[in-house]
């Protein structure tokens, strides 16, 4: 392999060009790291608050009481009918005896003589869960349909609560998107501009290489490496920022989550996640460097 066509040579050239302009390089790395860290923090917060599988408290559910007092009924038929209702994910049977036993275990209720009650006053019930993310209107419509099912006495569902949760969830998602989209765009534009700027500064070199008959792919290669190296360093810096910021915010958020009975799952940031983050950023940098070089050298 010849000297200029080797990858080692291209990497050396990339380092020469980037480290040869320490101020510009430092600025690009620092600004990219800040944006990457902000993006990573947003993603991490979302992940901890709203994991891919929505927590139970966020999922719409209803308690369907069967008309047990009127004698024996076909519970299996009721369950099947409930499951057939649109957007119902599951309908789990809660036997009245099991419900009574569960209530009896509670000290406060056993103290008032609940366990002495005969016969069991509780009805058979079904806990119906709807598909996650279902629209509140669709859930309400399904609840109305369940009320019409034979042998269903009543359906307990709090429409206001689910409407509020749904609204807050949408709002949080849109705020995060509003923050993440400009940050991501700024990162991509910033790195591309930096790569283009370097190519313009190196225009003499590009012209001479063109004159000498260098392959455009070989001329682009140092810029691909420069982009990868820049974002690799930026990602490493960003990961350190994320780790530090997490350690700083974790106790406060944990306490607040406990106070408001919200789900918050603090977790150590694994090293493999950091390595993956850096690798992804390096690949993104290489891609942006390649695109910028292709546009600039192509001209």
């Amino acid at each position, binding site marked *: 392999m*010849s000297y200029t066509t080797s990858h080692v040579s291209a990497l050396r050239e990339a380092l020469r060009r980037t480290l040869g302009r320490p101020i510009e390089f430092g600025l690009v790395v620092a600004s990219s790291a800040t944006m990457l860290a902000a993006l990573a923090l947003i993603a991490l917060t979302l992940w901890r608050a709203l994991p891919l599988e929505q927590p139970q408290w966020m999922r719409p559910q209803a308690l369907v009481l069967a008309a047990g007092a009127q004698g024996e009924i076909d519970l299996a038929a009721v369950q099947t009918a409930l499951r057939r209702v649109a957007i119902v994910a599951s309908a789990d049977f809660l036997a009245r005896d099991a419900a009574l036993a569960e209530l009896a275990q509670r000290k406060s209720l056993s103290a008032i003589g609940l366990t002495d009650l005969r016969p069991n006053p509780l009805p058979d019930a079904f806990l119906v869960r709807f598909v996650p993310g279902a629209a509140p209107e669709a859930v309400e419509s399904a609840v109305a349909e369940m009320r019409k099912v034979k042998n269903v006495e009543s359906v307990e569902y709090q429409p206001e609560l689910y409407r509020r949760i749904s609204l807050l969830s949408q709002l949080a998602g849109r705020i995060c998107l509003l923050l993440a989209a400009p940050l991501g765009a700024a990162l991509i534009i910033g790195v591309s501009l930096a790569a283009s700027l370097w190519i313009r500064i190196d225009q003499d070199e590009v012209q001479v290489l063109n*004159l000498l008959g260098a392959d455009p792919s070989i001329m682009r290669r140092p810029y691909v490496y420069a982009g990868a190296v820049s974002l690799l360093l930026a990602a490493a810096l960003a990961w350190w920022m994320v780790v530090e910021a997490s350690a700083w915010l974790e106790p406060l958020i944990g306490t607040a989550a406990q106070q408001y009975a919200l789900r918050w799952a603090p977790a150590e940031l694994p090293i493999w996640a950091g390595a993956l983050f850096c690798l992804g950023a390096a690949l993104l940098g290489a891609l942006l460097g390649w695109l910028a070089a292709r546009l600039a050298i192509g001209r």
Partner: protein
Amino acid sequence: MRATRRLTDNFTGSYAADSSAALSSPSVRTEPYISEATVQAPLLSCEAVEKRYGEFRPVLMGLDLAIRRGEFVLVQGAAGSGKSVLLRLLAGLERPSAGAIKIAGEDLARMRPRALTHLRRSMGILPPGDSLLRGRSVVENVALAAWVAGSTFEEGVRRARAALELVGLDAERFAAASCAALASGERQCAALARALVNRPALLLLDDLLGALDEATAARVIGVLDQFSAAGVTVVAAMRSGAAGLTLSDSMWPARTRILRLLDGKVAQ
């Protein structure tokens, strides 16, 4: 690629066999190595070439030209007469607005960009002005052309040193020096060494003697004459009234063909 192979292949049987010797020693044979039939076929040809930039008057108008292998052509003209444009067209760096330019029978306008890129590796191009890269040493600047053409690092450096010696620069003294530290004439010689380092089949030299003193100019002409005699086609451009043209006629090879460009046409 096809044109590149043809240009180089035809050349391999003549000059390239002794090319390493040509670079390592200034005493190249002055007798042509190639057969008369090969010499007669035009290596370069321009057919009714026209070049205009926007609405301005054309820089070149209806230019017809045929240059044979091993010919030494001096393109001469006043500033703005189209010499540099002609050389850029011959190098495939620009396309003519009308007409065709052929190298070894291949129309440059029809060649793919990648093939043109490869073709330029078999040319030695000296652009006008200072074209050396300031951030690199002299030997790196010269070796760059060899590296681009596929030489290993060591081979590139070895050939760069030989080329520097050939144009009269002390390789030991100048190799590691930064280009910024060179005088303008030395930079011109280093740029010429870069044009020679790949043992090209075609030399396109713009403003050849622009920054050279008389003694260095004479030496450079002598070197180019040796290359030309060995089968290399040399097309050099010089401004009318430039210092080089005041050299005595005997300094130019006797077979030098002079083309005078006047207002974009070859003056009769």
